[in-house]
């Protein structure tokens, strides 16, 4: 056995320790936040990414530093990722199924007589 290499057992155990530390760190301090930015007054806030922070106030400051260094926005929203309930793309078929067979919801289904516009 080569003394300068750690034993297999100690690699596993230090990885576990790291993992535990990370979990603890995550659990104790760093929440994940999703960041939304309004680029201009009057527009919707758009999702731009996420970051870790201690609390919402800190997330806001981090978001400013990370996502708006070049004047990308006039307003930022941060939302704890755990508070977002999302539908899954893999469920599309069943989730949207009742809405997919209604072509009459689209204006293009109704033909207009010649010469009629503004409808």
């Amino acid at each position: 056995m080569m003394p300068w290499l750690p034993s297999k057992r100690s690699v596993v155990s230090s990885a576990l320790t790291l993992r535990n530390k990370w979990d603890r760190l995550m659990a104790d301090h760093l929440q994940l936040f999703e960041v939304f930015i309004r680029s201009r007054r009057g527009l919707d806030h758009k999702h731009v990414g996420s970051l870790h922070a201690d609390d919402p106030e800190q997330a806001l400051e981090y978001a400013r530093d990370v996502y708006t260094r070049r004047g990308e926005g006039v307003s930022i929203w941060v939302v704890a990722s755990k508070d977002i309930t999302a539908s899954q793309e893999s469920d599309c078929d069943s989730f949207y199924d009742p809405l997919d067979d209604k072509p009459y919801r689209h204006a293009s289904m109704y033909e207009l007589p010649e010469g009629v516009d503004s409808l």
Partner: protein
Amino acid sequence: MADNIVALPNEEQFQARIDAEEKIEPKDWMPEKYRQNLIRQISQHAHSEVIGEQPEGNWITRAPTLERKAILLAKVQDEAGHGLYLYSAAETLGVTREELIDRLHKGVSKYASIFNYPSLTWADIGAIGWLVDSAAIVNQVSLQNTSYGPYARAMVRICKEESFHQRQGYNIMMVLMQGSEEQRAMAQDAMNRWWWPALMMFGPHDGESAHSAQSMKWKIKRRTNDDLRQQYVDQAVQQAHAIGLTVPDLDLKWNEQREHFDFGAIDWDEFQRVIAGNGPCNRQRLAHHIQAHEEGKWVRDAMAAFEAKRRKQRADVA
């Protein structure tokens, strides 16, 4: 209304922002009158979407074909959705849904007067979709540029969905006009009854509109009542003629100089009468809304009870 506003230090900055075409967002400072004016207009708009379901809902069970029934159901469902977008926009101004509904029920808050007219025949569903929704769209397209951000964004969403509404209405009228003599007469009768109330939807003439001047200054309204009404007449007349309908106005004629249609005088006494609560269906519309609201109370109570139970369960687990 505008004269007794006391200018606050912030008011000038606020107006400067409006003048620069900047949107106002929910957390911005705004004059109290601006907020009240918006709540009045947005909630009136929301109520109109919801009350407007009544004359159309009246024909869901009697639509002439299964397809027409599915289309009408989809349209009425859209109207409920539009009401929701608008109530939500109003709520960003710090008013609750309960307060808004309460004001409607007490008659403090209005809705579009046109929904106080009855839908007597199937052709009325065509006339409502085409004439009433078209008038609403002319107004709403201009409101996509209103100064309050959440209202403007709700308008963008609503306008996108409205074009189906007017087209299905126009299609009903077109098909009737291609039908028997009786069907054509039915379409013309609906046209005769809905035309003038549709013109009234744009409100009083500019000089007589109670809120217009201040609303224009604050850019809540972007175009005047008369300006919007003229655009509507020009469009609708052309659409009516294209399918063989006669516009019930003997004074209607193309004005070469203005490049617009001239049209006859609107019966403002009728307009005032209906607004004051004495149109053909005012009491029925409100009574029905109140009844539906009260009969739905057990659903709201059940939802609240369920939510409280879930909160307690989550608290017990934590």
